[in-house]
């Protein structure tokens, strides 16, 4: 259900940017989600569509890139991808880790046109 709030915040950023850039139409929105945030893409797309209805982003297509969970080992410096929720360095077995990716809720860019009739 958090998809709804996140979709609303995304549409606010998209519409604000479209206004600043004087876009007549937003055609595509590129976003990045980390695997840890557990967003259901279908619900998110539905919520986004609803929140941009009858705006310049009415027909915008949503492109969601899901990035895997990656950690860096504080002890040995190894970067690795977390599989099956195993948060342990796959080289030295240390569990002192920093997250590199996996928590993203990012809007990367929008694409659009400036054709005003």
């Amino acid at each position: 259900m958090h998809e709804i709030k996140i979709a609303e915040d995304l549409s606010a950023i998209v519409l604000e940017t479209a206004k600043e850039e004087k876009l007549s139409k937003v055609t595509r929105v590129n976003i990045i989600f980390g695997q840890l945030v557990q967003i259901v893409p279908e619900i998110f797309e539905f919520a986004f569509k609803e929140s941009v209805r009858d705006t310049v982003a009415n027909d915008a297509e949503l492109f969601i890139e899901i990035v895997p969970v990656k950690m860096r080992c504080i002890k040995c410096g190894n970067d690795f991808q977390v599989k099956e929720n195993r948060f342990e360095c796959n080289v030295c077995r240390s569990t002192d880790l920093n997250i590199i990716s996996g928590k993203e809720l990012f809007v990367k860019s929008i694409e659009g046109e400036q054709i005003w009739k």
Partner: protein
Amino acid sequence: MEIKIMKNILDRNQNKADEVRKLLELKKVIMVNIISSPGAGKTTLLERTCEEFGEKFRIGIIEGDVTTDRDAQRLKKYGIPIVVINTEGGCHLDSHSISKVLDYFELDKLDVLFVENVGNLICPSQFDLGESFKLALVSTTEGDDKPDKYPMLFREAKAVLLNKIDLVPYTNFKYNNFRSDLKRINANIPLFEVSCTRGDGLKEWFEWISGQINNLN
């Protein structure tokens, strides 16, 4: 044409959370964001905690509730400041709603502010409230698979409480599954196995939380 944005979608929430955190640090109040499923025992945990610390610490409570104030009614008897945030169906609290209700508290007269988030294991984990730390509360009757299903919460929390251990004989809950899954996800996280109704294990929790309050103050 493509316009680069590269921005956190929850920027607005994050900025407000940063403000809340700064204010609470200045006032030397620690804020504990309690996240659990509905019915895991958040309110009962707060009842026991208020009974234990009523004299020792100055406690305030923010109750996130979907529609009612029933949890707040249960806590009224302790005579501590409580504010209810009704989310009107919303599945989580956010930093803006927290910031608004902070005005109702005399922060100079508080040591700790417990936030009872809306019962849900996914959504509240995404929204920083400006808390000092998150606390994950799960109960044995929910099954032993919660850490594996909701890894984000168990990575982000500073401690885990496993409640209703008195009911284990009536469930298929396996301690080994729960402990090993939690260890795989967050090896160093403190785990308190308790029964908030019967009192088992609460001593260790009280010691830990008073240590946290004393350290941050």
